[in-house]
C-alpha cells in the first residue's frame, strides 16, 4: 500500500463585496437571452421541455446570487455555464434512469423527426450525439454560439488548450464518422 501526504492546492477565494440587487437587470437579461439559452440547451439535450426547465433554473440561480456576482456585465457567461452544467445533470440522470426504465425522450434529430431537419443535417446530429460529452459541448459552443476559445474554456471550466484539443479531436472524429456514413 502506497501512502503519501499532499498539501492543499486550491483555497476558496474571498467572497466578492455585496452589491445592490437589480431585479430589473435580470428581467432584461431574461427577455434578451432566454430564447438563445433555450436553443443552446435544446441542442445539448434534444428536447425543448427539459431545455426550458434548465434555462429557468439557470435564471433562478442568477436571481438568488445576484448580490454576490461581482461583475454584472459577466452574467451571460455565468448563465451559459449554469445551462451547460444543468444539461450535464440531466444527461447523468437520464443515463441512470435509462438503465431502469429506458429513454422515453425522443430527440429532435431522431429518425421520426428527420423531416424537420433533412437527412443530411440529421446525420450530423447523430454523429455529434455519438461524441463524448465534453466534445459535444465544445462543438455546440464553438459552432452554434461562435464563442472564442477563451469563453468556451470559461463556460466549460477547462483550459484554453483543452478546448483547442477537444474541438480538434471532435472534428477529426466527426469527419471520420460522416465519411464512413456515406
Amino acid at each position, binding site marked *: *500500500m502506497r501512502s*503519501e501526504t499532499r498539501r*492543499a492546492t*486550491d483555497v476558496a477565494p474571498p467572497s466578492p463585496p455585496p452589491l445592490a440587487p437589480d431585479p430589473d437587470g435580470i428581467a432584461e437579461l431574461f427577455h434578451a437571452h432566454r430564447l438563445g439559452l433555450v436553443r443552446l440547451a435544446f441542442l445539448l439535450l434534444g428536447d425543448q421541455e427539459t431545455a426550458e426547465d434548465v434555462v*429557468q433554473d439557470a435564471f433562478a440561480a442568477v436571481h438568488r446570487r445576484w448580490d454576490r456576482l461581482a461583475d454584472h456585465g459577466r452574467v451571460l457567461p455565468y448563465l451559459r*455555464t449554469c445551462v451547460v452544467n444543468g444539461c450535464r445533470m440531466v444527461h447523468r440522470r437520464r443515463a441512470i434512469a435509462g438503465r431502469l426504465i429506458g429513454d422515453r425522450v425522443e430527440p429532435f434529430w431522431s429518425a421520426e423527426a428527420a423531416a424537420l431537419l433533412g437527412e*443530411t443535417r440529421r446525420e450530423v446530429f447523430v454523429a*455529434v450525439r455519438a461524441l463524448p460529452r465534453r466534445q459535444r459541448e465544445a462543438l455546440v459552443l464553438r459552432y452554434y454560439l461562435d464563442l472564442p476559445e477563451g469563453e468556451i474554456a470559461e463556460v466549460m471550466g477547462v483550459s484554453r488548450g483543452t478546448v483547442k484539443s477537444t474541438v480538434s479531436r471532435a472534428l477529426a472524429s466527426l469527419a471520420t464518422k460522416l465519411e464512413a456514413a456515406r
Partner: protein
Amino acid sequence: MTPPIEDRLRDAFAAGADLVTPGSLRAEPSPVRGGPRGRRLALVVPLAAALLVALTSLVVTTAGRRTAPIPAGPIPAGPATAAPSVPPRPAPRFMMTADDDGVKIRDTRTGAVVTDVAPPVLPKHRRGDEYVVAGNGTGTLFYVARSGAKPGSRPTGRIYRIQVSERGKGFKWESDVVPPILGQVATMAVSADGTHLAYSVDGRIAVVDVATKVTRTWTTGLPYPIFDLSLTADGRTLALSDANKTWLLDVSGPGGLLSQARVLGIPTTMGGVAISPDGARVLAGPMRAPDALDYSIDEYATTGGGRRIRSVFAIRLHRTTGWLGVLQYDAGGSQALVRGIDRPFGVLSLTRGTLGPLGDLVDKPGPHALRAAW
C-alpha cells in the same frame, strides 16, 4: 463537393436551434418581481400571501403533512412528527464532491472548495475516468473509487482512502487500500470506523474488510448496477435500493445472492435511500404524494417490514429540474446529506425538518459537482 465539416456543423446547429421558435416557448414565468405590474400588485400580494399562510396552516393541521415552495434558502418546515432517538449535533465540517475531473474537499457551511484533491497519475492512454466517493459520516475519512479503461479493454476501478485534517487542507492519500476491482464502480459506502467498504459493480455487491482485504460478494441478479448503497456504523448491515425495491442485507455472512436479503416495504423512489448509523431507520425519498405535486423525504423503521415512521420534509417540486434525493446520514444520525432542489446538495436536519442549501457550488464556472459524501 462536400462542404467542410465546420460549415456542416454551423448549418445543422442553426437549423436545429431554429426549431425552437419564440412562439413555441412556454408562457413566460416571472423570474423576478418588479415593474409596473409588480407595483400595482403591491397591496394584493401581501394580502394573498397572508391568506395563503392561513390556508397552509389549516392544511398542515388537518392533513398532518408539510409543503413548501421551491426554496431560495433554508426552508422552515415545522417540528418533525417524531423526534429521532439521537440528540442533534453539528453537521460534519467537510464533505467531498466528485465530478469527471476529480474530487474536491468542500466546507459544508459555504460549499467553497477547501482542497482540490489531485489524483495520482495513472498509466497513459487511460481515458473516461469516473469518480465515486464515500464518507464515514464525520467529514474526515473518505474513500474514492476511480474507474476507467484503456481503449479496447474492460474498465477497472482503483480505491483510494483520504483522511482529511481538522482544517480540511492537509490530507493523507493512500492508494490501493483494497485490491483493484474489475468493472466500473457505481457507488460505495463505508462504515463509521472506515474498516468496512461496500461497493457496487455491474450486477454484484461486494463488502471488503479493509484490514484483511477479505472480500465477500453478493450477486444481485439485476441487469444494471445498484446506485444506492448505505452501511450502518458497525458495517454489518447494508441498505441498498434499485429504485424499485429496497433491501437490507446482513453482510456479516459469507456472501451469496441478493435474494437472501430482507425486502423493506418502502415505496418506489428514484431519489435514494440511506440507513441510519444505528441501523434502526432508513431515510428515503423523494416519495410522490397522491396528488402528484408534492414530494417528501420519509423515515422508515427497519423492523416490521419497513413501516413508515414519519415524513421528515415535504416540498412541491412542480416544474423544476432539481433532483432531490437522499445521499447519507451523518455519523450522529441527526442530519442527512441530500441532493438539492435547486442547488446540487443540501443538509436536511432530521430534528427540525428543515433543508438548508449547502453553499453555491456553481458560483464559479466549472464542472458541476455531481456526487458527494461526508
